[in-house]
């Protein structure tokens, strides 16, 4: 088991998400950076959907109750265990009683701790992800607190240290400025409700991520983007990545804990292959949108899978050489 010793911000247990309960109003939840969670699980030989801990803020501290292998992926963190520094995107072995400390997060917004076998909380409605709004899944449907005890599924393996290239390097995309993230979007239903000049404003602006951004949604700040005439839609299904424009003209990107439906006009949708980049964009930094086609969005998905396939192959190769 793992005991939480110190936590800052809403850390939570997440797997890849809950995908087939939308007709009951249940959103997907799941890791904001699915690539990092998958990579951590691959490093440990877990099922890629095994649950890990999503850590959005430091300091964060926990104690391992028994010997276990674990990995840290996602945001760059300054991490230490038993006096050893752990590099980013790395797996290593903890001994019973070892304390893991995440001291600072110089880059990115969410770090993922995965453990051998996964965090063994009950599966609720098909997933171990925490559903904050419904207060179920994860550990008692809530963020982690000091003193929480998390069960881990397996403890047997002893592994050697191993690192992989972070997704943000392998899947890097050019951006205009250091604190700016560019994500690809496919236009959505109400795009044509905005005139050409307003559409240009949407594409050309560098959008600031406001402090009101979280797992529910990223609220952006920039020039007002308003439709030619106000649009009130009948409520309809939406998915993470959808960019809504409420009447104040300031876009909101729906994220993993978003409502499953809405009625504000939708200008575009961040493609699934790039949504993790939004999840790693920090409050106060900037976002830019780049238009892409449905076909290119599918190609981007393939590129992401190829990266994960390469990690899987190299981890397997290393295991074979070591045994």
């Amino acid at each position, binding site marked *: 088991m793992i005991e939480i010793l110190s936590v800052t911000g809403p850390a939570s247990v997440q797997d890849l998400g809950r*995908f*087939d*309960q*939308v*007709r*009951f*109003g*249940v*959103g997907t939840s799941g890791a904001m950076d699915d690539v990092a969670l998958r990579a951590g699980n691959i490093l440990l030989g877990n099922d890629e959907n095994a649950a890990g801990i999503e850590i959005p803020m430091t300091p964060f501290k926990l104690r391992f109750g028994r010997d276990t292998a674990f990995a840290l992926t996602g945001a760059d963190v300054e991490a230490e265990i038993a006096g050893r520094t752990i590099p980013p995107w790395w797996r290593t072995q903890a001994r019973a009683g070892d304390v893991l400390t995440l001291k600072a997060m110089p880059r990115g917004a969410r770090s993922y701790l995965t453990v051998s076998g996964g965090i063994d909380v009950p599966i*609720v*409605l098909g997933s171990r992800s925490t*559903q904050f*709004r*419904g*207060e*179920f*899944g994860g550990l008692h449907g809530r963020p982690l607190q000091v003193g929480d005890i998390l069960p881990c599924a397996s403890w047997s393996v002893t592994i050697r240290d191993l690192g992989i290239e972070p997704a943000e390097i392998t899947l890097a995309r050019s951006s205009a400025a250091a604190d700016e993230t560019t994500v690809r*979007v*496919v*236009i*959505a*239903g109400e795009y044509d409700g905005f005139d050409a000049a307003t559409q240009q404003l949407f594409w050309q602006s560098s959008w600031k991520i406001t402090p*009101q951004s979280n797992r*529910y*949604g990223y609220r952006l700040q920039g020039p007002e983007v308003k439709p030619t005439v*106000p649009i*009130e839609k*009948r*409520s*309809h*299904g*939406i*998915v993470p*990545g*959808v960019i809504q424009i*409420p*009447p*104040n003209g*300031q876009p*909101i990107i729906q994220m993993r804990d978003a*409502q*499953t*439906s*809405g*009625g*504000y006009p*939708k200008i575009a*949708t*961040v*493609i*699934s*292959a790039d949504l993790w980049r939004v999840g790693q964009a920090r409050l106060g930094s900037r976002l830019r949108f780049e238009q892409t086609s*449905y076909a290119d*969005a*599918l190609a981007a*998905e393939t590129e992401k899978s190829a990266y994960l396939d390469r990690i899987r192959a190299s981890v397997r190769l290393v295991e074979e050489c070591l045994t």
Partner: protein
Amino acid sequence: MTASDRPRISLLGTSALLFEAPGAFDLPHQRRIWSLAATASKWPGIREAIPGITNLMLTFETPPRELDSLIAALNAGWDEADGLMIGGREIRLPVIYGGEIGLCLQDVADYSGLSVDDVVSIHAAPLYTVFALGSHPGYCYLGGMDPRITMPRRQTPLQRSAGGSVSIGGSQTGVSASPGPSGWHAIGHTTWTFFDPSWQTPAALAPGDTIRFEIERVIR
């Protein structure tokens, strides 16, 4: 046939597609949506078919390579869809109108030019039909609201609205099943359990069920 007589189909990235039926926000159109949802949920590659208000979202198991055949199937499916009659159950929900949770009752009265009492009696008069579930676990979108108490959604959504809030958003009304963000205007509240993940079916209500609001009290 004009363009507005045809459904609108649009993409939600690569993970879902939205079908919006032409025509009124009424029960006959909604019954056709339920019927189309029942059909489309069986198509290969479709994870879920989720009815909204006279619209339908299809989520993908894996995104289709090309969309033309799916779009054609949806259009054909809509033309063929007979209204699906669902014999639901009737729920009576006591509501306390106004008060701290229903702070916007006066705003709706001001916006519609009616008295608070009129807004309450107009809101509590109809037998509402659950058109769809969505938003958050167990939340029901209701059809049947009197257009006299329509009020546009908020300029900026609230970060947190109370659980059990009875709210108006545009020409729709509903009851939140848990606390959370909302762009709607709360006019009252109720205490009832709409969702429990341990139930066989986690949501208490389903499309086709009906709700009657009973005026328990009005706090002015």
